[in-house]
């Protein structure tokens, strides 16, 4: 097959490309230019899409002996991922930009362009497995290495997308990938992993939001509605957050306080004690099912954030929505994150958490 290997400049996508070549495919390396200012050199081990990363990807492609191109999807990325990220935070939610990027860029804009140019699919260095069933349909499964599993951020892919997606690293543990890169003579073998959000290379999400959205001073209130402090923008807070609340200590009983709600409409941050954080119901919207939607209420596992635990749950599809009841109370569930449903290792579907009703104490 003719395959585009998406090459970020990191070790994972490098080995993924190499494995696709080994499997006999005709592979072309493509680096996505996603930053508006591509000509910035790496400042730390974080992030990707810098000039240095494009150079690293090109170097790998040269060693592998495959053609290499840079495709400029910066405008699409800005619109579909960064603007969405800002709008979500402004609306009081906590988005996962990697999910959006996979949904709209890597397995949409990139995949569509590749198909239009005559390619059969796209290979990436994600840790997940695509399993082809005897009837030809594709399933997405967790990676063999649970530490690196990225099926959560790929849960938005539907069967058509999965049919054209290749994750050659899904059956291997990360240390082996580095070893393999070294054995293949790839210069990126010991390059640090990228973390956090690629378009916030310094890792300071709140600073990024403040620069983009401006300061919006407002109140921090307790669950009775009493003002207990102030903030410079409710968008900078996430449910479950404990640090940086800027509380006026007086009047509190010394027990730690957490963000239990972010009310965008009134620019208010609500804090409460730890016991108020737990939720046992989650409503997801924009549900995407890998295969048919489940019929009735089914027992599944639910993962509520990237690298989070999986909880026993029951789920019921309802049109575009999914209602999830958790077997135990789970803390720190934030609207805007994905709820991904699993049947053993198989991804059943994914939705964006619209609400996770906490125990309402307010009148």
């Amino acid at each position, binding site marked *: 097959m003719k395959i585009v290997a998406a090459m970020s400049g990191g070790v994972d996508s490098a080995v993924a490309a190499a494995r696709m070549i080994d499997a006999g495919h005709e592979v*072309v390396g493509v*680096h996505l*230019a996603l930053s508006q200012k*591509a*000509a910035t050199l790496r400042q730390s081990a974080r992030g990707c899409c810098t*000039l240095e990363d*494009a*150079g690293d990807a*090109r170097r790998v492609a040269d060693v592998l002996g495959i*053609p290499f*191109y*840079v*495709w*400029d*999807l*910066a405008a*699409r990325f800005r619109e579909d991922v960064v603007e969405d990220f800002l709008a979500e935070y402004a609306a009081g939610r906590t988005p996962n930009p990697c999910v959006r990027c996979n949904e709209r860029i890597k397995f949409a*804009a990139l995949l*569509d*362009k590749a*198909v*239009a*140019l*005559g390619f059969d699919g796209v290979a990436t260095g994600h840790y997940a497995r695509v399993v082809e069933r005897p009837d030809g349909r594709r399933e997405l499964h967790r990676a063999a290495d649970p530490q690196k599993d990225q099926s959560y951020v790929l849960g938005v892919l539907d069967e058509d997308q999965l049919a054209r997606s290749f994750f050659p690293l899904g059956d291997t543990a990360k240390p082996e990938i580095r070893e393999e890169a070294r054995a293949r003579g790839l210069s990126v073998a010991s390059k640090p992993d990228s973390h956090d959000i690629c378009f916030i290379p310094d890792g300071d999400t709140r600073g990024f939001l403040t620069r983009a959205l401006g300061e919006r001073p407002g109140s921090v209130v307790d669950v009775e509605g009493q003002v207990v402090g102030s903030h410079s923008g409710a968008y900078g807070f996430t449910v479950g957050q404990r640090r940086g609340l800027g509380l006026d200590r007086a009047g509190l009983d010394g027990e730690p306080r957490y963000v239990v709600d972010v009310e965008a409409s009134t620019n208010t941050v609500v804090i409460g004690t730890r016991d108020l954080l737990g939720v046992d119901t989650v409503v997801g919207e924009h549900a995407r099912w890998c295969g048919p939607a489940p019929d009735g209420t089914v027992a599944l596992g639910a993962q509520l954030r990237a690298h989070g635990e999986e909880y026993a749950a029951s789920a019921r599809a309802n049109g575009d929505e999914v209602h999830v009841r958790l077997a135990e109370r789970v803390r720190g569930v934030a609207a805007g994150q994905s709820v991904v449903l699993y049947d053993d290792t198989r991804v059943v579907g994914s939705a964006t958490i619209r609400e996770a009703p906490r125990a309402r104490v307010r009148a």
Partner: protein
Amino acid sequence: MSPAAIEAMTEQMARTGNASSLHTSGRLARRVVEESRETIAGAIGCRPSEVVFTSGGTESDNLAVQGTYAARRDADPRRVRLLVSSVEHHAVLDCAEFLTAHEGAKVTLLEVDPQGRITPDIVRAALVEDADSAAVVSVMWANNEVGTIQDIAGIAAVTKEFGVPMHTDAVQAVGHVPVDITASGVELASLTAHKLGGPIGVGALVVQRDHHLVPLSHGGGQERQVRSGTLDVPGIRGFAAAVEESVSELDTERARLTSLRDQLVEGALRLDLDITVTGPWTRGDAIDRLPGNVHLLVPGCDGDSLLYLLDAAGIECSTGSACQAGVPQPSHVLLAMGIAEEQARGALRLTLGRTSTPADVEAVLGALPHAVERARRASFGTA
């Protein structure tokens, strides 16, 4: 590289000798350098002493623009204005930008007409505006992207009237079209070896005898104290061999490439794909356009998609310029010619050279319809 240049260069590589040394091998090396200088000077119509060897076109452009700026400003602090054409290579444009940011320069961009031409009148108007502030004028002999050949002698006649030195980046012209530096009237001209069949990494700046230039590199004082650094004797030897060969075969090669170019352009226009040709193009003409240059605009396509599809079909071409990260940018040359950014994205630049044959032209014309059709679909997908 041309076989003659490879042979000349490799022969020299087997010999040791620093051309600045006094011992026997040094003298022999120096003789090779000076003979090469004479060969090049003879081929391009200047004196041997006017040829300053450099590492290539970029260094030559930097030395010409920055070195002249420094010399002119030192002599008269008012002379801080650079008049450069808007379609120059980045080696000139970015020099102007650097001098603006760090050395107090002011830049006047000389506008081009829709064919990419700078008329002598445009230069005159820019000089008349404030003649006392002009440090140097820089207009390329022939454009690397769209192949437009400028009226260098006409422009130099104007700069002479105002007593302002003129530089021309002749990298694309030497060996491809007749170039006589002295007759053109310019004070400075940049050359590079690899654009005419010579090795990569060597070039020259022609500096008229009484033109004053402040050096950028300092050290051993080689090359009239203007360009210090140990001379690359084998490279210079290969450079000279390539200049000699390309200039001596210029007439026949120019006619051959012009005909190939016209076949390619006419064939592309006939494909019924809404393709247009950029820059001046008249069948059989090699006065206004470089013989081997074909530049097409393919509406509704991203140049990078075309590039991939044609490369996959065994055709090597380019879209114009690329930034360091490799992200295709709309070419500043096309934008300066008044072409909209959207159209400029569908640029396709095909260069014909010594090894190009009619079969190559047929191959391009055969691959284009499929490539354009697919590229248009891909462009639709990401719009």
